[in-house]
């Protein structure tokens, strides 16, 4: 298995499949505790606020009996001016096997991986990637569809600023899905033409063909940035309301990475529809992270600077 998970691209289709089928075993018996990683120490190294990702990783590690440290930059030596490198090396010197890193700067987890010999998992870096979100989304989709091949997925919203969108697109493409990006022109990422996805600014015409309608969180500060005239306007043009949800085929799933802005990207009642799997995504996140920790930390130690074990 890989030593670090910095991008979803670190896993090929076979690797993703291995994580997902391992997660099946954990999903079947959620809440059960295993002794597997009792000699391992995992640190949640969070330079940016997070509730669900951090608690999800914490639960996943604890259910495998790993010791878990929680490090948040607020109230720590970071406020005294300690650099990322020094902080990471200090934490590693305490004997940590895995660093789960979130940072507001793209590429910070990758830099971290160069400085420490522990495994590094990217838990979200700036507008770059959030690979474990992609894995849990793929897992959730796989619960409902036998194959990813040709599956029609629309990712709707603020794609430009979304690490979730980036990782999901890459992961879905690896697995053979057919991805369409739907966003206001101002929120399309630069260079989207090279992503190998369909791009459109209109949601209505794509709905009838979809297997998955994936809504991104509309970050409220985007309105101040002038990307959208108003949140009401955004909701009217790109929000999944009752009328648009009715245009989706019966089989289509409604997904959202959370936290939701009900009434903006998704109407309050649509989030509760039977085809909405948003709370499943949260539960599945724990199982997928358990699988990842088991596969990454349950094998022989990968030597510093050595090649990743196959």
């Amino acid at each position, binding site marked *: 298995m890989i030593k670090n998970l910095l991008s979803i691209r670190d896993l090929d289709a076979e690797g993703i499949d291995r994580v997902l089928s*391992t997660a099946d075993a954990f999903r079947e018996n959620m809440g059960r505790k295993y002794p597997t990683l009792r000699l391992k120490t995992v640190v949640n190294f969070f330079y940016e606020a997070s509730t669900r990702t951090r608690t999800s990783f914490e639960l996943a590690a604890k259910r495998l009996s790993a010791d878990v440290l929680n490090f948040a930059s607020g109230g720590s030596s970071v406020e005294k001016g300690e650099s990322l490198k020094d902080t990471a090396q200090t934490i590693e010197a305490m004997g940590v096997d895995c660093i789960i890193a979130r940072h507001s700067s793209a590429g910070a987890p990758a830099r971290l991986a160069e400085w420490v010999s522990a495994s590094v998992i990217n838990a979200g870096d700036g507008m770059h990637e959030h690979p474990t979100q992609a894995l849990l989304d793929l897992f959730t989709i796989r619960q409902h569809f036998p194959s990813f091949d040709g599956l029609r997925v629309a990712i709707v919203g603020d794609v430009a600023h979304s690490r979730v969108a980036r990782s999901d697109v890459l992961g879905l493409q690896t697995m053979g899905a057919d991805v369409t990006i739907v966003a206001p022109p101002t929120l399309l990422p630069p260079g989207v033409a090279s992503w190998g996805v369909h791009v459109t600014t209109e949601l209505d015409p794509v709905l009838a063909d979809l297997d998955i309608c994936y809504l991104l969180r509309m970050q409220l500060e985007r309105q101040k940035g002038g990307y959208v005239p108003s949140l009401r306007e955004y909701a009217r043009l790109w929000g999944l309301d009752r009328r648009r949800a009715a245009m989706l085929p019966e089989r289509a799933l409604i997904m959202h990475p959370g936290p939701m802005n009900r009434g903006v990207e998704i109407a309050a009642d649509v989030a509760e529809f039977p085809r909405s799997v948003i709370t499943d995504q949260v539960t599945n996140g724990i199982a997928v992270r358990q699988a990842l920790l088991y596969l990454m930390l349950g094998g022989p130690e990968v030597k510093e600077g050595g090649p990743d074990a196959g």
Partner: protein
Amino acid sequence: MDSGDVGRALARIAHEITEKNKGASRVVLVGILTRGVHLAKRLAERIADIEGVAVPTGSLDIGLYRDDIGMREPVPLAPVRVPDIDGKIVVLVDDVLYTGRSIRAAMDALIDIGRPQAVQLAVLVDRGHRELPIRADYVGKNIPTAHNEEVEVRVAEIDGADEVVLGEVSRPAARKEAGR
């Protein structure tokens, strides 16, 4: 052992289980993945023939309880499906009893799930070489072996036929590479 031998051994074990437990009303058969699961189902069918009761069966993956975690590549995991075992007599079913390490792991896994009244062990083949103080309550056949030999139990559901074959491990590293 050919398929006739395997069938007769399972039939005898089914009788022994019902005899020892005065029927099968409190018995649960839990097979250790992969082949133990199929053997457990066969035993349940035989017990149904003898006693006329349907014995619950389950499947146990021991990957998360192994004592060599961190020494080899992580083994693939399969979902654990075990019925209610609280207060029941659980008969663990495995194909081959060798070092006893799998059984140790299986017992830990079982105890994490519930509190059986008793745990018993049924194996199709006991090949010796125990490394832990573990013994089987029901044995299909004792086959004395050398360390460099390999006992392979085949079941119809996976391998097309029921049989037990004795082979020689030509490359000691082969098993490690195969992962499982």
